[in-house]
C-alpha cells in the first residue's frame, strides 16, 4: 500500500488514488467527482476501477461541490476531488452552506497543498486551506503525516458521518507509522518523547519535526514530537499534557502560520497550559514559484528552522 512493487515509498497521491479504490470496493455508495485533474490527483485510479461511479464535472469547482451535495442527499458518499486551492477558495460558499451547514456526508480531499506544489506558484501552492476550513462549523480537518496516516484518514473519513476535509501533499514522505496505524479524530500521536520542548507537527512537517529533534538531540536538547494529523477536532488534552511536561513548544505546518495548526495549538495552550510557542510555516506571504528545497529555505520551514525555533522557545521558557 505505502510502497511500490520495488519497495520504494509511494508518492502520497498514489496512496490517495489506491485508497479511493480500496474504499470503492468496500462501499458501493461511494462516488468520486473530478474537476479535470484526475491524472494529477490520481483520482484517476478510481475512474479506472469504477468508471460508472466516477463523475467528471469539468473545470467548475462550484458545481463540483454543489453536485456532491445533491448526491449526498440521495444517499451517496461523494469525494469531490480538486486541488486544495480551488476547494478552499473557489468553492468555499458551496462547501460551507450546501455541505457543512446541513452536515452532509461529503469527503473533500485537498490535493497539491503547500510548498511541494512549488513551480505552479502562489495560486496553486495552497497555504490558507487549514485556516479557512478550520473556521467552518461541522467540518473535520486532517493533514496526514505519511502514507499509512493518509490511508487511515480516508478510512476514518468514510466511517465518520458528516463532512471531512483532508490534505494530500504532492510529495513522497518518509514513513512514520506502520501498516497497523490507526487514525482517530481528535487523537494526536506522541512519536518521540522528550522533555525540553514539544514539536507539534501536522502533515509532511511531522517528518521535519523528527529531523529537527535529531538536530536538537545532538546538542543535548530533548525534543518531544507530537503528530497532530487530526487538526479539527484537535487533541487539546495531549497538546496541553505534553506542553505541561516540556514547558515550551513549536508548531510546524505546510501552510500559513496565520489561523492554521499553529493557531489551533496556541488556542489550546492559552486555555489549558500557556507556554512559549513558536510557529513554523509560511510566514504570511504568498508562495511564489521555485524549487522545493529553495522554497523551504526561503520560507524558513526546514528541520533546521524548526530546531532554531525550538531553541528560541526554550530560551523564552528560561526567561533569558
Amino acid at each position, binding site marked *: 500500500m505505502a510502497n511500490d512493487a520495488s519497495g520504494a515509498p509511494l508518492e502520497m497521491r498514489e496512496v490517495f488514488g489506491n485508497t479511493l479504490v480500496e474504499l470503492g470496493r468496500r462501499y458501493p455508495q461511494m462516488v468520486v467527482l473530478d474537476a479535470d485533474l484526475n491524472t494529477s490527483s490520481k483520482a484517476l485510479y478510481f475512474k479506472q476501477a469504477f468508471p460508472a461511479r466516477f463523475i467528471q464535472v469539468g473545470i467548475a469547482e462550484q458545481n463540483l461541490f454543489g453536485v456532491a451535495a445533491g448526491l449526498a*442527499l*440521495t444517499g451517496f458518499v461523494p469525494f469531490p476531488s480538486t486541488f486544495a486551492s480551488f476547494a478552499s477558495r473557489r468553492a468555499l460558499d458551496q462547501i460551507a452552506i450546501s455541505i457543512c451547514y446541513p452536515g452532509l456526508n461529503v469527503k473533500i480531499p485537498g490535493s497539491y497543498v503547500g510548498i511541494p506544489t512549488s513551480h505552479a506558484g502562489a495560486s496553486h501552492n495552497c497555504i490558507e486551506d487549514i485556516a479557512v476550513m478550520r473556521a467552518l462549523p461541522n467540518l473535520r480537518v486532517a493533514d496526514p503525516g505519511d502514507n499509512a496516516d493518509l490511508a487511515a484518514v480516508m478510512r476514518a473519513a468514510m466511517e465518520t458521518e458528516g463532512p471531512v476535509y483532508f490534505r494530500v501533499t504532492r510529495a513522497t514522505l518518509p514513513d512514520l507509522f506502520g501498516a497497523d496505524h490507526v487514525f482517530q479524530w481528535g487523537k494526536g500521536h506522541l512519536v518521540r518523547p522528550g522533555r525540553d520542548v514539544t514539536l507539534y507537527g501536522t502533515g509532511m512537517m511531522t517528518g521535519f519535526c523528527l529531523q529537527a529533534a535529531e538536530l536538537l538531540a545532538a546538542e543535548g536538547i530533548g525534543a518531544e514530537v507530537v503528530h497532530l494529523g487530526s487538526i479539527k477536532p484537535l487533541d487539546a488534552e495531549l497538546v496541553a499534557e505534553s506542553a505541561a511536561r516540556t514547558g515550551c513548544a513549536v508548531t510546524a505546518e505546510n501552510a500559513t502560520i496565520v489561523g492554521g495548526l499553529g493557531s489551533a495549538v496556541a488556542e489550546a495552550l492559552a486555555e489549558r497550559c500557556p507556554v512559549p510557542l513558536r510557529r513554523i510555516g509560511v510566514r504570511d506571504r504568498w508562495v511564489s514559484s521555485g524549487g522545493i528545497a529553495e522554497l523551504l529555505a526561503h520560507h524558513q520551514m526546514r528541520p533546521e528552522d524548526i530546531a532554531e525555533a525550538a531553541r528560541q522557545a526554550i530560551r523564552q521558557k528560561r526567561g533569558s
Partner: protein
Amino acid sequence: MRLAPDKLAELEEMAYQIRRLCVEMITYARWGHIGGSFSMAETLAALYFQAMRVDPARPHWPERDRLVLSKAHGSPAVYAALALRGYYPAERLYSYCELGGLEGHTDLTCTPGIESSGGPLGMGLSIAAGMALGLRYQENPRARVYCLMGDGELGEGNIWEAAMFASHYHLDNLIGIVDYNKVQAKGFVWDLMQIEPLADKWRAFGWDVLEADGHDLEALVEALHRARWVMPRGKPLALIAHTVKGKGVEMAEFNYHWHTQAPEPEAADQMLRELARAYGRPEEGYSRLPAESGKEAFYRGE
C-alpha cells in the same frame, strides 16, 4: 391536460393561502421577502398540489419528487405550501426566524419537506443536478427534481456551471423553473443586470425551454405536465415562468421596496384584506402582535 374545475379551484385556494400565510409569518417574524414569495404562489400551488409526487407522511420516501428552492429567501412561500400540504401544522409558520423555529433561509435539517439548505443565491441548480444524477444512478426513473430559481439569481455563474453539467449528463429528470418576476433586490433585472435573451441562454446551454404565464394556473399545470411527460428526451428542461414580483398586493407589485421588507401590522392588515377581496373571500385582517424577538432596539430598519 385539462384541469377539472374543482381542481383549479383548489389550486387557486392554495395560491391564496400561500400569500395569506406569507403575510402572516413575515409580519409576525418582522423579517422576510414578500415580493419573491408572492410571485411563486401559483407555481408552488401547481407543484405541491398537482405536479409533484410527494407524501407528507413520508418526507424521505425515496421515490418522491424533490423541490430545491435555489432562491432560498423565498422560503416563506414554500413553508406555507408545505404546511398546507400537511407536512406540519400551520401554527409552526409563526416560528419563522425564531431560534429553533423555521429558518430564515431553508435548512433541510430541521423542516420536513425542505430538500436543501440555502441562502446564498446560485447554488440550488447544482444541488438539484446532483440529486437528478443520483436518482438516475439509483434507477429511480419516476422521481423528478424541480429547481426554483430567481431571475436576478441567474447572474450567478454557478447557475451556468450547473446548466452546462445538467445538459452534458442529459438529466431529463431535472426541471428548472425561473421565477421571472422582472425584479431583483434593488431594482429591475434589465437595469441591474440584463439576462435577456433568456430562452436563448438556456438553449445555448443545452436545455429545452418552455415559457408560461406564472400566474395562470392552467398554463402552469399544462407546462409542468409537458415538462414531465412530453418533453424529456435526453435534455433538462427550463420553464420560464413569467411572473410579477409581489403579485397579489398592489403596493408590492413590481416594487423592489417590497423585496425584503416586513410589513408593519397595519400594512399587513391592508394586504390581507386586499388579497381576500381579490380572491372573493371574506375579509380578514391581521390580528397577531409581532413576535417579541423582532422588536429589539438593537435591530432597526428594513
